[in-house]
């Protein structure tokens, strides 16, 4: 249009002049024709254009055409002005067009499509991930060669199908844009060839037997790495190898060495434990094998029928832990008091009587000890005492003694050597490393997969010592604190890029197979060791050759092991050794030697639930994962009990100055009900100073305060408030109390048995004027969450984040209460604020049949599907947020900004291609993993069959270690779902609102010890719930009043 008009306008221009003064335009040739044309017309003749006036044949031809405007511009109509106009417009439009950034994308088909790879379909490969040197078997989901999700390997003993937060979040680490990209030397880019010739070759050609060579690696259980290390030692007899692990179970190994003469570790079987006594032990949350323990412990608390048996858990801990939340009898005590409690417990179950005096005759401690002892004695051989790995040696000896005396050894607990190389040895002692470095004999340092410059007691000053080594190299995923000190920095492969092996806690060998080529030239420790040995540095050859000679000679067996992820029958044998003579008495004496109330405050150093010892600090999913108890994200804070906080006059966020033995640091405080008084818990892993952009500057580094050689707690801490300094903490839950609302119901076992239908008023049909919509056609999706089983580990949160492309928003947005998690774990404290009960409730979209969100949406963006899903149509949403306002559960999440705008190229690869990435201004929320439902339905349809019960598994359900979450179709349910739907403790959260949720809960059942007879009624109910009366007929002895006492 416009071009033609432009030409016309120009013609009219000339025409105007022509009409005004005909004589003037004679020189352009047409003027004469117009003049003659005009001459033939009278004054009343009208002509609409000059063409008509001239009445040329071209005009007639154009008139005859149907669409004259579509005509191409006749070449002779180009004038200078129209040309310039068009030119200008084109340039302007071209400039405007360039404002749209069209990404350079290529879509190429396979030239030779591998038979197993069909674009759009998902494949799973077995692999395994090590945390602290111990393997957890995983199944990695691969979308056309790109790992997008990790799930537990059901065949693996440490997983049983579940995965923890680290395993779930390790996917993001693979795609972390901060990862070291290629070899660096002195800050400049280099190559592996250069590294090999300039660093490895001189080191490998040493003639001193390796005396000046120091190798620092992380803890390892890998048979391949151990074999390579052995070969290295053979070749360089004097080489120093150090294993760096700030979380090594030092006390447990020392206790076992004294008790049994060998570095044995207990292997627990919670299936058989009617009574579980946890002393500063996070057996279900952070210990090795925690996923298995959690599965077993929860299995003893199903309680679908009131008559079922139920375990009882006694816990004594200085800070509430994931395991402690499940406890029926919980005592809060300082970490330093744990050995005394154990001594008293030993005396109470008939052991060395000297321990009787370890706790005062009156008080909470005695009540807890007596109740635990009663239950333990009533459940000989079916009970278990577990102690935190990092308690001092005597605590472990006392626990071994109690378990031995109760006949638990060989039943609920057995002993086996640690699978970690040289566990408990001097090569694990950071002080020995410091001494070696200080000696000055080391001229070549090679650090791989460890960060000793950061994660070691501050007084050892390992960083300074390592910096003094003339020739240093570091193999690392990131340029972390240690890598910054080393001249050579080479990339460490992520386990999803690597070949390898590792052992689970019970010795079972798991294979590590890669899902993707190394993104940034990373190599494994085995490949690095092979380079030092001048061997073939190829991971696949190394592992295959090793296992050819170590039990998997044939290719069939190898393929089978790869496919299953584990090597069968590699579990280490357990034993039931007797305690060494006199060690029990020595342990009691050692326990009694610590003063009952050490002066000053106590500080307890802990691994962080999110970033562990610091190795996951650059993982944004984990940084934004709320702590299970404090709900703190993005940082650490000194945990205090409410009473201690009141004494110090601090509130959450106030900055404290902690001083211990001359070293001090400042960090914000957080008040945690249930924490021991006069004790401060601080967490490792924050305050990073490497080049990791996510981790840098988040939280406070507490390693500096940690005294060398000490267990991870110490007395004598001085705490003072730094006046005027306050740090706003990024917590996701501000309110502790449930305010008597029927959100997370709980009852004691006794109440449950007395009134099995206590949850009845909170479920079922409600009076309504309207006939409810009949959801009876096809599958009807529903979920039941067992609050008795939830331990708050938050693996579901990360699993959902990975599955559903949930964005990370950062600390500032969390402070503004804009976190995006589709599932969260609500934590309520009840009862006495000092000794509260804790109730946890996974909260996700309840998929209400009468959904309050649906009827308020003005544009039909959230609607109900016929199979009972509350659906969100992202591209119809205009973002009124009315749905969220009207959601009683507040599970809807809004894209306040374009949270996906800043994703790097590699992070995009972590996205699940089956799930839409949401744009700014739209609402999102849990979909019941609708992509999984539809995928399964399509597969069933293609195969011409009905969907099988249990065929659809949501991401949260899949990863839950305690199987607290069950999902399925009400019209085609699994047995589990059917049983839970029929359970008498099933209820709907906030039932009275009439929303008819498809997510139901099973009320939590606790099993507190009955109050002892009056004569011994010193026991105070530590949970702060109503203590049941002493002499009820049903009696709640552990395991369901079976009368085994």
């Amino acid at each position, binding site marked *: 249009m416009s071009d033609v008009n432009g030409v016309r306008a120009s013609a009219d221009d000339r025409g105007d002049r022509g009409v005004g003064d005909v004589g003037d335009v004679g020189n352009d040739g047409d003027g004469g024709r117009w003049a003659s044309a005009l001459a033939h017309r009278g004054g009343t003749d009208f002509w609409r254009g000059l063409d008509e006036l001239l009445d040329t044949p071209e005009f007639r031809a154009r008139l005859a055409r149907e669409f004259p405007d579509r005509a191409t511009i006749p070449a002779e109509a180009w004038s200078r002005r129209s040309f310039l106009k068009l030119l200008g417009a084109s340039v302007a439009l071209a400039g405007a067009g360039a404002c749209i950034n069209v990404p350079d994308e290529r879509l190429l088909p396979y030239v030779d499509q591998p038979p197993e790879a069909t674009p759009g379909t998902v494949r799973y490969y077995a692999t395994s991930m090590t945390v602290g040197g111990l393997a957890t078997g995983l199944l990695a989901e691969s979308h056309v060669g790109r790992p997008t999700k990790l799930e537990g390997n059901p065949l693996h003993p440490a997983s049983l199908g579940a995965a923890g937060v680290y395993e779930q979040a390790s996917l993001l680490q693979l795609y972390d844009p901060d990862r070291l990209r290629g070899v660096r030397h002195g800050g400049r880019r280099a190559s592996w060839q250069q590294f090999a010739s300039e660093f490895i070759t001189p080191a490998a050609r040493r003639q001193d037997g390796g005396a000046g060579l120091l190798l620092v690696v992380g803890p390892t259980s890998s048979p391949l790495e151990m074999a390579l290390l052995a070969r290295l030692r053979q070749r360089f007899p004097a080489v120093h190898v150090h294993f760096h692990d700030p979380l090594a179970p030092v006390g447990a190994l020392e206790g076992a060495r004294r008790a049994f003469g060998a570095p044995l570790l207990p292997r627990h079987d919670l299936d058989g434990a009617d009574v579980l006594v946890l002393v500063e032990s996070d057996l279900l949350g952070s210990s090795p094998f925690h996923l298995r323990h959690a599965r077993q412990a929860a299995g003893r608390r199903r309680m679908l029928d009131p008559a079922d048996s139920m375990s009882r858990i006694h816990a004594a801990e200085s800070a509430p832990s994931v395991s402690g939340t499940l406890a029926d009898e919980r005592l809060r005590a300082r970490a330093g008091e744990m050995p005394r409690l154990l001594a008293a417990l030993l005396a109470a179950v008939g052991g060395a009587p000297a321990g009787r005096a370890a706790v005062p005759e009156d008080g909470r401690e005695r009540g807890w000890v007596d109740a635990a002892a009663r239950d333990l004695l009533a459940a000989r051989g079916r009970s278990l005492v577990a102690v935190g790995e990092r308690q001092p040696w005597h605590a472990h000896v006392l626990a071994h003694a109690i378990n031995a005396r109760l006949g638990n050894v060989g039943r609920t607990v057995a002993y086996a050597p640690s699978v970690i190389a040289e566990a408990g040895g001097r090569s694990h002692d950071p002080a020995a490393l410091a001494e070696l470095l200080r000696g000055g004999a080391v001229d070549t340092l090679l650090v791989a997969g460890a960060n000793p410059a950061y994660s070691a007691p501050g007084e050892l000053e390992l960083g300074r010592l390592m910096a003094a080594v003339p020739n240093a190299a570091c193999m690392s995923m990131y340029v972390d604190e240690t890598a910054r000190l080393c001249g050579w920095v080479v990339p460490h492969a992520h386990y999803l890029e690597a070949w390898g092996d590792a052992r689970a806690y019970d010795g079972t060998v798991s294979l590590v197979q890669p899902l993707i080529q190394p993104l940034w030239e990373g190599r494994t420790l085995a490949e690095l060791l092979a380079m030092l040995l001048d061997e073939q540095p190829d991971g696949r050859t190394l592992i295959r050759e090793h296992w050819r000679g170590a039990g998997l000679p044939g290719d069939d067996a190898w393929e089978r092991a790869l496919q299953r992820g584990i090597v069968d029958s590699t579990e280490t044998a357990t034993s039931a050794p007797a305690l060494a003579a006199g060690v029990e008495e020595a342990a009691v004496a050692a326990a009694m030697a610590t003063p009952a109330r050490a002066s000053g405050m106590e500080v307890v150093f802990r691994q962080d639930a999110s970033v562990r010892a610091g190795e996951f600090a650059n993982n944004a999913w984990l940084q934004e994962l709320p702590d299970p108890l404090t709900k703190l994200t993005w940082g650490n804070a000194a945990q205090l009990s409410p009473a201690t906080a009141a004494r110090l006059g601090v509130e959450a966020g106030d900055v404290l100055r902690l001083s211990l033995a001359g070293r001090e640091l400042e960090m914000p405080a957080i008040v945690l009900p249930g924490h021991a008084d006069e004790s401060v818990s601080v967490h490792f892993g924050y305050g990073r100073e490497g080049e990791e952009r996510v981790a840098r500057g988040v939280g406070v580094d507490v390693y500096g305060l940690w005294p060398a050689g000490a267990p991870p707690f110490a007395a004598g801490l001085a705490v003072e408030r730094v006046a005027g300094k306050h740090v706003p903490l990024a917590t996701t*839950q501000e*309110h502790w109390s449930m305010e008597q*609302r029927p959100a997370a119901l709980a009852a004691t076992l006794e109440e449950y048995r007395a009134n099995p239908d206590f949850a009845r008023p909170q479920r079922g049909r409600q009076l309504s004027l309207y006939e409810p919509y009949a959801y009876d056609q096809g599958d009807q999706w529903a979920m039941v969450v067992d609050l008795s089983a939830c331990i708050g580990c938050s693996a579901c949160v990360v699993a959902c984040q990975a599955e559903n492309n949930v964005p990370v928003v950062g600390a500032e947005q969390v402070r503004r*209460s804009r976190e995006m998690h589709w599932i969260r774990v609500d934590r309520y404290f009840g009862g006495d604020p000092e000794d509260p009960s804790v109730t946890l409730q996974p909260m996700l979209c309840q998929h209400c049949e009468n959904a309050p969100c649906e009827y308020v949406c*003005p*544009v039909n963006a959230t609607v109900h599907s016929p199979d009972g899903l509350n659906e969100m149509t992202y591209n119809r949403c205009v973002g009124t947020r009315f749905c969220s*306002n*009207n959601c009683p559960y507040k599970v809807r999440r809004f894209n306040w900004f374009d949270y996906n705008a800043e994703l790097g190229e590699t992070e995009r690869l972590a996205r699940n291609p089956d799930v839409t990435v949401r744009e700014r201004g*739209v609402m999102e929320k849990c979909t019941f993993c609708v992509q999984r439902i539809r995928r399964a339905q399509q597969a069933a349809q293609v195969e011409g069959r009905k969907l099988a019960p249990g065929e659809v598994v949501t991401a949260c359900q899949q990863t839950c270690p305690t199987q607290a979450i069950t999902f399925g179709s009400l019209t085609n349910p699994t047995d589990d779902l059917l049983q839970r739907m029929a359970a008498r403790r099933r209820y709907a959260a906030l039932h009275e609102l009439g*929303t008819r949720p498809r997510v139901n809960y099973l009320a939590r059942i606790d099993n507190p010890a009955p109050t002892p007879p009056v004569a011994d009624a010193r026991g105070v109910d530590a949970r702060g719930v109503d203590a049941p009366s002493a002499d009820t007929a049903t009696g709640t002895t552990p395991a369901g009043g079976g009368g085994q006492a």
Partner: protein
Amino acid sequence: MSTALPPVIHLPLREPEFSDHVISPPFVESRRWWVLLVISGMGAAVFIGLFFYSVTLGPGVWGTNIPVGWAFPIVNFVWWIGIGHAGTFISAFLILLNQHWRGSINRLAEAMTLFALVNAGLFPVLHLGRQWFFYWLVPYPAVTGVWPQFKSTLPWDVAAISTYFLVSLLFWYLGLVPDLATARDRSPGLWRRRVYGIFALGWRGTARQWRQHRSAYLVLAGLATPLVISVHSIVSLDFAIALLPGWHSTIFPPYFVVGAIYSGLAMVLVLMIPVRKWLRLEQVITDRHLDGLAKLMLVTGVMLFYSYAIEQFIAWYSASPIESYQYLVARTRGPYAPFFWAMAAGNLLTPNLFWSSRLRRNQPVLFVASLVVLASMWGERFIIVVASLNRGALPSSWAIYIPTWVDWGILLGSFGLFLFLFLLFLRFVPTVALSEVRALAHEVEEGRRRAMAGGVAARPDGQADSLGRIA
């Protein structure tokens, strides 16, 4: 009432001096007008700038969060639309009730309504996450075949506000036509006459035109009157249909309407008192008008008190822990408790000043009291919207809302936009309904004359209502 009311108009009304004065008030040439225009213009620029800032970056620039999904934009929306109600109330409601004194102030009040609605209409668009799709709330025949969801109140909101704006605009304009004709005839300068002439639609003041004008005006008044009730009722349903404790309440429609008129009357007073002085309109806007508006504020204030009391009572009476917590604990002792008490005191105590006829006619008292009421009514909407969301049904999701500088900037900017439009109105549109005031003056004189002639006692308020209507 024993006290004699002031006259509704001071006679004699000299024409054409009075019309000339209204059409070209000296004030609009003054330095004060220019200063105010520049200041309010800057405010309007801030508003427009922050509007586009928010659209560009996203609603994250405000303090809103989960659970507080609505905050300043919705508070401002409800407040502005409430302000608007007084104009329609004065012009439409009172004409039907034969309250002739309204003739002097209806033009001002209606203009205020329009400009308040301009603001009120922008906020619902602004508060969206994807503002460019706001038209999806309008029932248009889209090729997608998707209609708005009529169970939600928001599409009704759009319909109510747009209807209200159109009817208010027509009503205002229809009332203006004879005055525009006067302006056309009396304005200095050819251009002004031409422009006024276009807008006067060829008004000649013939009897036939007057007849049609009057009936059309009454019909529109009849249309506008239910809108006063319906618009804010629908706005209140944005909250009342929700499950949220604090919103889920059947008293909301009348409660919101009363509150709207209450705040609107306060805004009329805040504008009228300086306008009357600066434009020297004391002859037609008398103490009688102040008195009448103050009385209306007293009445609506008492009704508001009743609403507050019933809200609290029902919360207690419901025996619902969630409901009673919201009203009896969260509001009175929660994080926004200082605002709750301040707004309750401001709204409930202030109108009690107007039991006194002396205070009803005291301009400084009226002005300050009206400002207090305006602030308190904004606070009331803030408490309803934010404090309810802040303490929802599930305690785990409770979180504080803190406004950002953008929130404050948009609020202050909307005042600027409002004032800017109002100042332009003062300059270019006759601020007093000239034809009505002339008729009023005529009737008052007639009434007096007849009273003297026939011995009938003239009503002291000067309200000659032997005729059923004016003009």
